């Protein structure tokens, strides 16, 4: 957050995505600065995931632009890049943590190979170093090193999610997209995972876009918050501000629908 004066890392301008007549998301604009965590909340079908896919290079938008501050050339439209450049960016400077770990992991190779894959993709050819980096990252996400050679299919949901995070962070990305990183996990595992993500993000200064329907997650993780409904952003601001003093009727409804424990 202290990097406000610097250039934005990610700049999204008037982004729209339609599926035929269906609106996925419409006229979304935001900027994300280095080290900042942006939460995107909204009910199912509000366009959160469409937005995330568009800004993370997985789904070309119907209109608008997504610009990323590349290390060499500065701000560049990611959809104007050539495909090799974009794919290179996606496996070095970016990470994507999927809701379902099966989408983000290779289920038929061991945990160590899953973490090492990105390193090998960018040219690492020394087995000992790759394995060292993999163990290092498994430790950072609090996984038992004795399971480095086990298949992800034998892991619990929380472990798979942590493995996915390790796999994404191993190349030292500056921006990580997370799509519902904690849904489908029980609350105690959720709490540990959130704690882990928060620690890593703070320590490494990674910028994050976190899409979730869980307001508890954004309160813990994100600095700023965007509330989406029907494909549009209805309210955005600092997380505490939006959650404690919601202005838009929909946000008020959303905040008041949290079940008290």
């Amino acid at each position, binding site marked *: 957050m202290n990097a406000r004066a610097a250039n934005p890392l990610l700049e999204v301008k008037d982004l729209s995505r339609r599926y035929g007549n269906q609106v996925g998301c419409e006229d979304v604009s935001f900027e994300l600065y280095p080290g900042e965590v942006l939460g995107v909340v909204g009910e199912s079908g509000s366009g959160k995931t469409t937005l995330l896919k568009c800004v993370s290079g997985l789904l070309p938008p119907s209109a608008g632009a997504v610009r990323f501050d590349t290390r060499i050339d500065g701000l560049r439209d990611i959809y104007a890049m050539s*495909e*090799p450049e974009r*794919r290179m960016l996606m496996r070095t400077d970016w990470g994507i943590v999927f809701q379902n770990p099966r989408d983000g992991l*290779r289920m*038929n*190779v*061991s945990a*160590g*190979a899953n973490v*090492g*894959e*990105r*390193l*090998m*993709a*960018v*040219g690492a*050819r*020394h*087995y*000992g170093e*790759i*394995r060292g980096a993999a163990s290092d990252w498994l430790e950072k996400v609090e996984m038992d090193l004795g399971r*480095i*050679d086990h298949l992800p299919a034998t892991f619990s949901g929380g472990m798979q999610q942590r493995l996915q995070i390790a796999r994404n962070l191993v190349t030292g990305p500056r921006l990580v997209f997370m799509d519902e990183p904690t849904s489908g996990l029980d609350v105690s595992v959720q709490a540990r995972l959130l704690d882990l993500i928060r620690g890593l993000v703070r320590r490494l200064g990674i910028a994050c876009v976190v899409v979730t329907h869980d307001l508890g997650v954004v309160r813990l993780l994100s600095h700023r918050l965007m509330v989406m409904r029907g494909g549009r952003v209805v309210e955005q601001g600092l997380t505490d501000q939006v959650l404690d003093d919601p202005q838009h009727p929909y946000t008020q409804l959303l905040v008041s629908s949290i079940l008290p424990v």
Partner: protein
Amino acid sequence: MMDGTMQPGVPDTLEGYNFAYLDEQTKRMIRRATLKAVAIPGYQVPFGSREMPLPYGWGTGGIQVTASIIGMDDTLKVIDQGADDTTNAVNIRRFFAKTAGVATTEKTAEASIIQTRHRIPEEPLRADQIIVYQVPIPEPLRFIEPRETETRKMHALAEYGIMHVGLYEEIAHFGRITQGYDYPVQVNDRYVMAPSPIPKFDNPKMDRMAALQLFGAGREKRIYAVPPHTKVKSLDFEDHPFTIESWDKACALCGSDHSYLDEVITDDQGSRLFVCSDSDYCRTRREAGHAGSGLPVPAEPDTTRDTQAGEQP
């Protein structure tokens, strides 16, 4: 190679078939694919593979490539598992003898075209020879990436990190790279290629080979090639370099200590005979006066089983 039209005057060929079985249009199509393959070393060129009078897996791809490049003045050798006298080799050799009336041989040095399955001859090939490989699975990325659209994109963008994921797995589980055949190679520093199921022992022979190497996959409908004198590098890690198999035995028939050996079980006590896999190489050596012990190696006591049973040695 000359253009094969109908061959009056060629004795003992089947009547009613075109020279070398395939019709001329098909051969032209295959030659076009082959030329493209030679122009882009290691790149898999799709082609319209035809039904052949033998089942998929028996070398339909190799036969189609051979049929489209063979001419009347060629001499054909066919290798199956290193030998000239196994079912597959005998039948494919007979097939071309019947349909093309070409000379066939079992001697590597005399052949102008060598169609092979599982081996490269021990004797170095020359610039005036062509080796045709029969390929069951041409896509080296297939085992880890099942989507064809994705593997094509990975080849196009040279995203080959995933090949090392496979090798990583082997080292992680077994302490060394265990892939023994169809060991992936990178051709001309660009395309990663499946060398067909030859033992990795033969991989170094592909590197800068003087002969043209053609690969045909009939079921998968792909042709690829390595032009003469082209760099072929086996993939490995810096701290786990590529190595080939070695034996502490010599061939029992010709005494060779540097060729690829087959292990033949000779009785139900576990005695084994180590002999050259390349039958022509072994015979040539024997004719030149080399000889091996001729004796099987007795079974070695199975120490692993003893310690597993809990007995202290």
